[in-house]
């Protein structure tokens, strides 16, 4: 049975209330450390930090519109082998989904992990966040969550949410252990805490928070937000499809690509330990390039750009959680997320699969059945 409780907010300071909650979690006997986005002392950048000392949580900031890395990769690193202790991790919904995909591939384990999430307010692209935090300093997160909760998500004084966030239809996770609710909650007074798993329920009961019912405004607020996101998303799908529906258009779409493979490095679900594109398979013989140039008249260098993106789509589109780190990592502003999400939508639907939804759903290419997809076989009529 799920538990719904509240954390009191005093002085309108949501962040301070969250920090207090994290400290209480860290003070329990079960949890030895907590992974949480934290302002770094030397510069006002927010990075995930593994905090073992509750007194070091004063700079924790899970609501900052900063999303420098998909934490699923960090959590995978922390849980790939038994640690001998249990940790908590504060993750965005898309980070949890990516972690679920990695856990299915045995690249992470959840048995020593307590996943905590907050309603996701979204984030800026890296460069926009840097500008924002330079302008508003210590106040920046406060300004940000207030304007988002007031419903002002489109334009935030010049800074704009990343398009991955604007098109995200899952701003509230359903597969964390504990979820901190903000949408439709009177955050000046309290935050909502809900358990989403049995482990979460057991843990919350131990904290002995005051139980309250979920306010009826919460469902409505989430439904309205999701509808807004879906509208943006569907428009994005349509325009991206139109921009890439032929090889010529796709070639133009990726004309700025320099094969740096940052998108692949930043992608939380690009699961290969060694990418084939950095192996000798693609380190062609010098004379091979000349042969290609002779045959075609000219070849663009570096080669295999479209080949790379198509291969990546085959490898990870069924696992794509739409976090947008690919676009964040692109040095040449290619809208990578837009295309990958558009394709992923189709491939995931084809296999009746939703990336990151639950550990029980097998990745489409890890299973097969005797009687399936008869339309794929044969020459057709």
């Amino acid at each position: 049975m799920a538990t719904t409780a509240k954390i009191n907010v005093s002085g309108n300071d949501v962040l301070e209330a969250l920090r207090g909650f994290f400290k209480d979690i860290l003070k329990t006997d079960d949890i030895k450390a907590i992974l949480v986005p934290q302002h770094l002392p030397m510069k006002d950048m927010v990075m995930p930090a593994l905090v073992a000392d509750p007194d070091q949580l004063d700079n924790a900031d899970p609501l900052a519109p900063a999303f420098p890395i998909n934490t699923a990769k960090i959590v995978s690193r922390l849980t790939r082998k038994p640690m001998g202790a249990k940790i908590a991790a504060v993750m965005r919904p898309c980070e949890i989904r990516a972690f679920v995909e990695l856990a299915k591939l045995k690249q992470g384990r959840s048995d020593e992990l307590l996943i905590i999430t907050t309603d996701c307010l979204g984030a800026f692209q890296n460069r926009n966040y840097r500008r924002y935090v330079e302008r508003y300093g210590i106040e920046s997160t406060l300004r940000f969550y207030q304007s988002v909760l007031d419903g002002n998500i489109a334009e935030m004084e010049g800074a704009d949410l990343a398009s991955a966030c604007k098109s995200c239809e899952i701003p509230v996770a359903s597969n964390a252990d504990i979820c901190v609710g903000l949408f439709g909650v009177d955050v000046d007074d309290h935050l909502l805490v809900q358990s989403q798993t049995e482990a979460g329920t057991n843990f919350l009961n131990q904290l002995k928070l005051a139980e309250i019912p979920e306010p009826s405004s919460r469902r409505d607020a989430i439904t309205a937000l999701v509808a807004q996101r879906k509208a943006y998303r569907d428009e994005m799908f349509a325009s991206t499809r139109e921009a890439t529906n032929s090889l010529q258009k796709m070639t133009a779409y990726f004309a700025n690509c320099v094969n740096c493979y940052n998108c692949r490095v930043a992608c939380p679900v690009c699961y290969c330990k060694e990418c084939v594109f950095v192996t000798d398979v693609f380190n062609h013989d010098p004379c091979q390039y000349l042969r290609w140039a002779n045959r075609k008249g000219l070849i663009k260098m570096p080669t295999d750009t479209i080949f790379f993106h198509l291969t990546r789509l085959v490898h990870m589109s069924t696992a794509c959680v739409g976090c947008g780190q690919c676009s964040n990592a692109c040095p040449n502003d290619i809208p990578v997320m837009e295309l990958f999400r558009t394709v992923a939508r189709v491939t995931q639907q084809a296999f009746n699969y939703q990336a990151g939804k639950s550990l029980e759903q097998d990745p489409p290419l890890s299973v097969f059945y005797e009687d399936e997809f008869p339309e794929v076989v044969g020459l057709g009529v």
Partner: protein
Amino acid sequence: MEGCMQDFEPTIIAFVCNWCTYTAADLAGTSRLHYPKNIRLIRIMCTGMVDPQYIIKAFLEGADGVLVSGCHPGDCHYINGNFKARRRIKLLKEILPQFGFEAERLKLTWIGASDGIQFAEIMQRLVAKVKDLGPSQAKLVMVV
């Protein structure tokens, strides 16, 4: 336009499994059956080892069609390679059309070792189908 279509000789890359379809092709040959010269056979041990990359590469290099052909369900020498291939082809048939490669250019068939006659017939039908589709866009566009 029609005349131009008549002249069009497609290139079709066929990945055929050692145990069934390649053997069928061999049988077609030793039986002196005719099949079109547009088919370029690549023998592989099992359709389950056809990496989607091979198919993407073939299309980007200008193949007008790609065929993957192996054993009938239940006959796979490696028990279930053909079922794995079917999922991969399904995936590619979802992805490639989004970039203008018609799904009909990619085919998966099961042709058993003793199906020499069927092999020749299927190759003829396949070539006719790809001829109807016309040349692949990768032949007309610079691929980066």
